[in-house]
């Protein structure tokens, strides 16, 4: 079985810890000048979504998690699963709600997302950094509340709510940064 030594540790490396697939967020070597070196590692557990800290004596080996990132197109949501298709192989996978806690509100049909598969099962779906979505609902025109800094909430077609400038109207297509959840610009046809 594949494994990694602590000296291969770096951000993004996928490990299997206590049976759960995890991804390294941060790896810090702690080493007293003349003494034993240790690795202090921050990881995200893909199954629980939790961030945990773990320490290793340097030189230890840890089992690699068979995790791969695949770009897949979102097809539809049947209320229970979210279906994605690999545009090259046409292979389909069904992701549970738990894989889209952060991302579900940003994606619409045909959106190309990164699906993280563990032994073929979707763990996490990551939307593109920028998405273009139409405004489904917002207060009309400039009537917004200036006390809120010249912005008003708008509900997008995918369900996300973002703060937008007062001039934005229903039906307009917006570019949004999914990492910060912030409005970027209007998309001109």
């Amino acid at each position, binding site marked *: 079985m594949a494994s990694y030594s602590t*000296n291969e540790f770096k951000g993004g490396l996928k490990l299997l810890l206590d049976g759960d697939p995890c991804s390294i967020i941060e*790896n810090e070597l702690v080493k*007293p000048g003349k*003494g034993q070196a240790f690795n202090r590692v921050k990881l995200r557990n893909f199954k629980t979504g939790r961030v945990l800290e773990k320490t290793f*004596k340097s030189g230890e080996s840890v089992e690699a998690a068979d995790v791969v990132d695949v770009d897949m197109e979102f097809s539809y949501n049947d209320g229970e699963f979210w279906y994605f298709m690999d545009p090259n192989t046409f292979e389909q996978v069904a992701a549970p709600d738990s894989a889209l806690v952060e991302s579900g509100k940003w994606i619409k049909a045909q959106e190309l997302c990164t699906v993280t598969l563990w032994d073929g099962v979707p763990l996490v779906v990551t939307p593109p950094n920028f998405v273009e979505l139409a405004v489904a609902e917002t207060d009309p025109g400039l009537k917004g509340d200036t006390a809120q800094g010249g912005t008003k909430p708008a509900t997008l077609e995918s369900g996300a709510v973002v703060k937008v400038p007062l001039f934005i109207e229903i039906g307009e297509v917006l570019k949004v940064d999914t990492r910060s959840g912030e409005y970027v610009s209007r998309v001109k046809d």
Partner: protein
Amino acid sequence: MTDNWKPAASLETLKIRARVLQSIRAFFAARDVLEVETPILSKSAITDPQLESFKTQFNQSDYYLHTSPEFYMKRLLASGSGDVFQIARVFRIDEQGRNHNPEFSMLEWYRLGLDHHALMDEMEGLIKNIFSEKQENIIFERISYQQAFQNKLGIDPLESNAQQLEKCTRDNNISIPQGMDIDDKDMWLDWLMIMSIGPSFSKNGFTFLYDYPASQAALAKLSEHDSRIAHRFELFAGELEIANGFYELTDAEEQAARFMNENKLREQRGQKVMPIDLNLLKALKAGMPECSGVAIGLDRLLMVLTGAEHIRDVITFETGD
């Protein structure tokens, strides 16, 4: 295209760095300490199991890049050089991260006739000089290794065994790393040092930790009054290790025994046995004067001076960039 070709540190930091180098040279010039340069390449290498040397070849022989200029500088001392200092680039495998780069700058100096406490006094003076432009009052504290463990954890690091240290770790709710060697007392001491003692040091000041357990003597003389301790010390800024020094071991036979013991350890751990520096042993035999010496990690000192979070912020280019 990224801007990877550009320097890691800002020009402002590089100017501070240049000023620090000038102030170090002025400090030693005023004290008649001779600046020297010694070879980076050597046929022998350090045996310390915690350090790995870069290796290369020349004339069908293996050569190693030094991990510190210590051995050549001691040969100078034995030859009658008097007090010497060096600002050297040193190399260590497997170290890259927030506080580590595989090559880094070391300030190392030796003072004849001084014990480790007198050398600590001089270090305070040097560091106060370097930090003088910050106009802040710098605080230095000194505590023995034993006292630090007793104060923070209520345990005597000299008398307790591995099992007691393991229990102390659990009792203090300190996590236990994967791969811990249960019977290795020094490994437990190192772990408690990292997790508990270091973090207890004054956050904005410097702490000298002195008189390490004899098992961690490295190249320090053992105490004449208490064979459980070695006259080794370290300097910390907050919990960041800045320097390591010794009241130097001058006994050739004791030094030879320590080298061979370390090589034995390396063999047991599956590491390569390193060629011992016989010329250093000969120099010690010829007679090295009583002295104390210390090595300061200059990049880390600059991190403290500039408030940098990462070593790359104080060096021109990171290894590999």
